[in-house]
């Protein structure tokens, strides 16, 4: 388990939840707030281990629920379900391709809030739903889709800047160097 990567992912989730709660620009323009946790979950599912994935689902979901009117625990299982399915299929996914990241981000951002609402309705809550919720769902899907490749780029940059660089082996061997002197060269 790469501890640095786990810490980075959890820190990003913490900041993402805080940003969603305090930055209202997109909400005022589009009447919907984009959730960045599914995008982070896609990154974690493709690049981290199952422990990091579980930690992200538990803490990310708990932080989100703590700042919203959701009962605590509502967002955990939907996030984990999305990440778990991607994690199971990770060997088959072309994770380096931005298009694949975009599609996965869109799917995760569409499924996670839908499952959250399902959980809310199952436990007897009455969330504010209507035809306008379809628009909000589309904005969340689109926003999550756009955010996912950005998350990949940011984490690649962070890992490159903060992680250990692998020692590359060179083919140069000093004992096999052909020594030439000037005399021999210009004869």
């Amino acid at each position, binding site marked *: 388990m790469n501890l640095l990567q786990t810490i980075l992912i959890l820190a990003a989730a*913490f900041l993402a*939840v*805080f940003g*969603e*709660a*305090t930055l*209202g620009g997109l*909400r*005022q323009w589009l*009447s*919907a*707030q984009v*959730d960045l946790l599914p995008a982070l979950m896609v990154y974690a599912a493709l690049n981290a281990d*199952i*422990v990091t*994935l*579980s930690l992200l*689902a*538990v803490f990310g979901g*708990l*932080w*989100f*629920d*703590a*700042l*919203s*009117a*959701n*009962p*605590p*625990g*509502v967002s*955990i*299982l939907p996030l*984990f379900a999305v990440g*778990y399915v991607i*994690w*199971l299929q990770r060997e088959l996914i072309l994770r380096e391709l931005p298009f694949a990241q975009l599609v996965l981000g869109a799917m995760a951002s569409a499924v996670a*809030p839908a499952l*959250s*609402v399902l*959980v*809310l309705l199952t*436990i007897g809550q*009455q*969330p*504010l*739903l*209507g*035809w*306008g*919720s379809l*628009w*909000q769902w589309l904005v*969340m899907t689109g926003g999550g889709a756009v955010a996912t490749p950005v998350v990949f780029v940011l984490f690649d940059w962070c890992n490159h800047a903060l992680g250990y660089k692998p020692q590359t082996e060179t083919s140069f061997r000093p004992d096999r160097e052909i020594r030439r002197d000037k005399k021999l060269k210009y004869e």
Partner: protein
Amino acid sequence: MLKQKHYIALGAVTLATLLLLSLPPRATSRLKLVVGSWFLPLFGLAGTAQQLPVTAADAVLPRRELLRQLEALRRENDRLRAQALQAAAMARENDQLRALFGWQRQTPWKLKLANVVMRDPANWWHTVQIDLGTRDGVRENLPVLTTDGLVGRVSSVSYTHAQVVLISDPYCKVSAIVENPAHDMGIISPGGPLDNSFVELSYLSGNANLQAGQNVITSGLGGVFPKGIPIGQIVDARPVDFGLYTEARVKLAVGLGSLEQVWVLFP
């Protein structure tokens, strides 16, 4: 081993979720307060960052502009003083009349100003958090308003912050009356998830005579909101349930999308 590990993770997360969802309400609110308090340093940082441009702008404001603003504020102060004098005279007259009729005397409102520090990150709730908590005497179900009208009520409180459920949320039901000759009475319920500047006034009587532009205020019934807080104005009305009831669309007096400061009303 790898397979076992991911089954263990699946089981652990499911168990944690079920455990959290089955917690009693008291433990649930405590847990939310504890987890929410992790964000307090960030709230402090965000508040400071928001104040920085204001402080910088104040520092470079020219003297002429400051004098102009001072003059405008002096004039407004004089006007408000005259209004306050008139209101005091009216209040005295009101008290005398109430005493004559033997009605209970109205108590003046005690208000405390609060900053809106956060909005609900979920799209299916309309709540905000304010920077007043139990240390400031805030408790659940206190009404929250602005100078324009009703905003909502306090739904949960921590030591430093409180969550306010807005009037456009399904969990904020308000008994309201229309300021028309019949004083038609109904219940305010949410309008829709997209536009939080409109709400529905439902359970009005079938023969309610509603006109666009009529004011809607709190009725004082229910014990949470005192009577007379402006809610908004009637936009249109339609009969429902084969004319048994009337439902009206109400344009809220307060712009809930751009709340920055609100008043908490203490009894």
